[in-house]
């Protein structure tokens, strides 16, 4: 679905990303690549097959939107470097026309030099434009700009009849922060309770709906 923020139209994608058509910009948060491998190395069985879908989903998204720019809002990799890096390298090389930028998150331990070698821009703090700020963490500042951010992995729990409930990832807008759901398959979620003046957009199947 489309929403207008500071006069600019953004598409909220059910693939858990945001697309801005004029700039041909794709925004993605919290992919947590390499998480399965990191778990395996620490003796926890998380099959790395599950991680494969993250690469497929990224590739599919790049392919269908053909963006000029992609911003990763932090926590692109879950931990220090491991064999997953190879998959990432392949992916970036396959889409060499795209300009990739990583805004670092608390999980991003991989040295910047690894990214720059792949021509991926790395920003340690936040990326600021005239109307928007791109950040990993939500910011507690007063500003007219809108802060696109990740880190929280927002989701809402919807209660149904007979004690049934579903947990759905969501976009969450509480000025100035516009939270993206986590992109990665192997990420957890934090349950948001919607307050007044806040907007929640849930991801249900192939759709994004406002609550």
């Amino acid at each position: 679905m489309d929403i207008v923020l500071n006069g600019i139209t953004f598409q909220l994608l059910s693939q858990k990303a945001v697309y801005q058509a004029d700039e041909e910009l794709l925004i993605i948060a919290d992919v947590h690549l390499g998480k399965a491998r990191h778990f395996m190395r620490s003796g926890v069985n998380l099959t790395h097959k599950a991680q494969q879908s993250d690469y497929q989903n990224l590739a599919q998204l790049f392919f269908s939107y053909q963006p000029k720019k992609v911003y990763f809002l932090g926590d692109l990799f879950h931990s220090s470097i491991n064999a997953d890096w190879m998959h990432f390298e392949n992916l970036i090389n396959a889409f060499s026309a795209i300009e990739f930028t990583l805004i670092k998150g608390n999980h991003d331990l991989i040295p910047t030099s690894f990214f720059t070698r792949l021509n991926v821009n790395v920003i340690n703090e936040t990326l600021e434009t005239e109307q928007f700020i791109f950040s990993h963490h939500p910011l507690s500042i007063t500003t007219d700009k809108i802060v696109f951010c990740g880190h929280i992995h927002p989701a809402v729990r919807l209660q149904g009849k007979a004690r049934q409930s579903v947990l759905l990832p969501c976009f969450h807008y509480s000025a100035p922060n516009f939270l993206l759901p986590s992109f990665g398959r192997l990420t957890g979620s934090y349950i948001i309770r919607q307050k007044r003046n806040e907007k929640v957009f849930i991801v249900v199947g192939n759709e994004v709906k406002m609550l």
Partner: protein
Amino acid sequence: MAFPIAEEWFSRQGWQPHDFQQQCWKSITTGYSGLLNAPTGFGKTYAIWLGILESYFKKRQRKNGLHCLWITPLRALSKEIYNATTRVSDELGLDYYIGLRTGDTSAKERTQQKKNILHALITTPESMHLLLAQKGYYDFFKQLEFVVIDEWHELLGTKRAVLVELALSRLKSINPNLKIWGISATIGNLEEAKDVLLGIHPPKNKLIKATEQKQIEIETLLPKTLKKYPWAGHLGIQMLEEVMPVIERSNSTLAFTNTRSQCEIWYQRILQHSPHLAGAMALHHGSLSENIRLWVENALHEGILKLVVCTSSLDLGVDFRPVDTVVQIGSAKGVARFMQRAGRSGHQPGAVSNIYFLPTHSLEIIEGSAMRYAIAHKQMEQRIPYIRSFDVLVQYLTTLAVSDGFRKEDVYKEIIQTYSYASVTEEEFNWCIAFITKGGSTLDAYEEYHKVIIEDGLYKVPDRRIAMRHRLSIGVIVSDSVMQVKFLSGKRIGSIEEWFISRLKPGDAFWFAGRMLELVRVNGMTAQVKNTKSKKALLPSWQGSKMPLSSQLSQSIRHKLNEYHQKQKHDVELQALVPLFEEQERTSHVPKENELLIEKVQTKDGYHIFIFPFEGRNVHEGLAALVAYRIAQLYPISFSISVNDYGFELLSDQKIPLESALEKDLFATTNLFEDISKTVNLTEMAKRKFRDIAGIAGLVFNGYPGKQIKTKHLQASSQLFFSVFTDHDPQNLLLKQAYDEVMIFQMEEIRLREALHRIQKQTIVIKELERLSPFCFPIFAERLNTERLTNEKFEERVNRIIKQLEQS
């Protein structure tokens, strides 16, 4: 003298040995294993312990090393056994030293225990596995001759029993002549309890039953007028006036409630009603800090307290001699639990246990009489043992790999001797091995996975951090994510589930530990609070599954209902219920034992069907889902469902084609599993069961309270594992286990089948009602509670609806 030590001890105390004690001494000294079934308060500890001492001192040559391992389910009990046994050694001057090892034992003491010559060690199932996770355990256990499992009935039916079975399988292979003794209260499957304990190829053994029996006196507290007593509810506060005289005239009373929030409410209300009890009454439940609980237990022991309002947290534990009265508030749900609670009073041998049953709504009154009937006819519940728990097996294999390592063939031979794993195939065992060595059965062997590796055929954990994390997570009790509640001074009061605290804002007041507290701030996993005198306070509700009514008690209730139709003299409870049954007859019908009652009624909410199998809430949940699914197969219709222990309700906005569904054999047992698996709930339920499984199998590690280990980067929810396994590893045995556990323990498949068979033989009586009947009203009211409101709000809403009913 056949038993010099035992006889001297008994004559010193001025006691006469019971028959069962002498039988135990004889069997133990002649090399038997076995199970002792005796009620508490008759000296069951000495029946076993003195036998072991006799056996030890009969030998000409006594080797150094551990001779006896005594397992109890509770630390408090371990302590009591330690004191009792040490007293024997001290007073008789025996060269037999006893050590105590629980989670509380300091590291220093532990190393001393290893060096010193201990003859017996008293411990818990978890600590027993911790011993197996230490290097050199083989030497430590080499001379072991006896293992005693105390309160075996309490462990059986939990995964802690599986821990015991596994540890025993290893100890047996270290010492093939090991003798195993269990001590159990009366349960419905004592023989099976013995089989589980002793394994598939048991040593020579005996089941010794004490003929001594505890006298139980049950009195149901009846409301002054039944008319004013509510048809629904589960607090029972209206009965305060009736219960206070009982408390006042007793020396010391335990009041058992079914939930922690009910416990908090009762404590408050009694204090408001009788302020003079302040200081003489206390509160005891599982979320209170250990310090508070220990203080209460000690105070009870010393006879300082006149009343303790408690939950199942006091079901087990040391004897409180001063306690002479027990009050059960609300249904005890099972005969065995009721008897156990009754037995907490009148602890002196020969004394009568007095228990008062306080029904929380009118129909529940019948449970008092049903309970008396069940006890008189010795209808005790069975404890269903866990079998094929792969989560525990995976944990155990890692435990062995952490210490000295294990050989695959040896361990396989050992575990298939246990009751729990007897049916595990080599293929399944190999899956478990693959799970800890490669991370799963998936063919892409993973070089980076290094939990357990093979070195010269020996499976070991090479990584010290993994080993340490494993030791910290040994055990099968998985707790929810809880927050510590502390005063600003840092004094700990207890713990509350995180989600409750997350709803509060600083400044909000809530009841906890019988005080009104104000939330000051949340700091990490700690909620800092101070005392307050606020007017309004919230009541925490702890999440926990509701116990279903046991099969034995359900059966007695059906029998008692039937008695209403008979001409014989009714007991007090039935007499009291006559007005209610008359109302039920006016609006509907009181079912006989060979009838299944179905009520149809239309309200502004829609079309309701109420069905009353009287089989407990778990079975009703399964039945309701099944019936809903089968009706929907005939005709597109959707339902909302609510259940209680007596029956269930289907509610729809359209007319329900019940009659045509009945013609199509609505209650058939054919396709039972298929039909149930098609109802949506199953996956959701399995996902919930998987939470514990993932924790036990070491997939989810949350760290331990007080042991802050940085594992944030290793945190993942069990739900994630559940969905990843479902997509990528559907053959995963842990996943299958989750579904099995749902069928066995949640849906109670066996009971569900039996219920369906019974229903097929019954006459179905359908009644069209003009207004809600006393039977269906509690279920109707239950639906209001599904939104997880606090009890008080629930009560208010129920009252409002009752008023509306009276007006119409």
